[in-house]
């Protein structure tokens, strides 16, 4: 996944599965960045994955629903996550295809450390399920 932070609308089509793009699942907010306090903060409206604990390094970002996040290096190797969505909570799944185990992550919150049963394996995500 490329890590550019230009047009989030274009990026939805790029990083989301075609199904996600089809379902117009983009959750796009402002381009304001916010916590976490990392070298590269998470853009507004995004779910961000970092390959270091405490949101270290540049994030991988998604704005829509994704049936397969493991194709993206940052999510396949995630060590911390941050939900900077300003509209919805997000549910992330260990497996692709929205298969359990599932974890709810409220907007504006994050996991500084992903533990043993999500570490290096964020397989899919859906917004606005709860």
């Amino acid at each position: 996944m490329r890590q550019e932070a230009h047009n989030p609308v274009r990026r939805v089509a790029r990083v989301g599965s075609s199904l996600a793009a089809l379902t117009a699942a983009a959750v796009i907010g402002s381009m304001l960045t916010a916590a976490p306090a990392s070298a590269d903060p998470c853009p507004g409206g995004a779910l961000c994955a970092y390959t270091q604990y405490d949101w270290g390094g540049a994030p991988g970002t998604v704005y829509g629903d994704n049936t397969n996040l493991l194709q993206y290096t940052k999510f396949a190797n995630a060590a911390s996550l941050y939900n900077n969505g300003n509209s919805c909570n997000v549910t992330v799944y260990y497996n692709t295809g929205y298969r359990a185990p599932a974890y709810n992550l409220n907007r504006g919150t994050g996991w500084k450390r992903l533990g043993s049963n999500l570490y290096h394996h964020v397989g899919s995500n859906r917004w606005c399920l709860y």
Partner: protein
Amino acid sequence: MNPQRWAQVVLLPVLLGVVGCAAAPGRTATVDLPQPLDGVTYFTSAESSALHDAYEELVTRCMRDRGFAYRPTPLSSATRLRDINPYGLLSREEARIDGYRITSSLAGDAQARPRPAQAPTSTPGWDEALLGTEAHRVTVQLPEDHEMYYNSDGCTYQATAALYGDDWQRLYDTFQVLANRVVETVSQDAEFRGAQSVWSACMERAGQPARTFDEARGRIEGAFTRAAENRSDLMPVVRQELATAAADADCQDEVGMTAAVRAAQGRAQAAVLDTSRRGQLDQLRRLRAEVLRRVTASPGATPR
């Protein structure tokens, strides 16, 4: 055919034929199936909807009190995916009506997915009012070496605390980790795996070969994704889903899969629940029961 037209032509019969039936009141057989930790972290789609409405009302009120406009975002119609049993268990009735809930949930989502409200006046001040500030950051250590945080001054957190209780966030996050540990342990349990092998042989005889529950369900997801990508007729996918799910549920029934899961779940739960966790679990159960009583008894009656 453009995507919108495809959605209108292809999805409408699916929605009428499948969602219409499945969404009928009382079709809640899935809640009778085993859930980790007695379902303490699980809410049905109907419960989620009621909780979401109450929560968004509180967020709106909090933002208004801080001088900001806020537009609540409706839940996705795919929220029914939450009713999928985490062990892959199916009731026979549900399987024959709604399959794995894949086509009906995702097709409905494609047709009616609410567009998340744009932040109307998203500014640093708006974001801070909604999500809170670093000065009020609370870090929580969770089982399995997870560590999470929230900002206690954000309207999102304050609405959560007002609705569910001050301890909810910490307890819920603790037990969603443990519930997932239980699910994973069950999936590795020897008795569960043995029963799944017998189920697999049954699926083979039924003409729906699959080694695991995930494989059977994944095949339908793949078929749906391909149909969606190609914007082709979804009815063959619906028929395939209903046939596969019906065979799946019949084979689960024949094998006694629900009993095997209950037994494995009991062992897995005993391993994660020490005395102190049991006390926390009781506390979470009480908070859960209380919030459900409140939002279902008098929808709209949110605490001030």
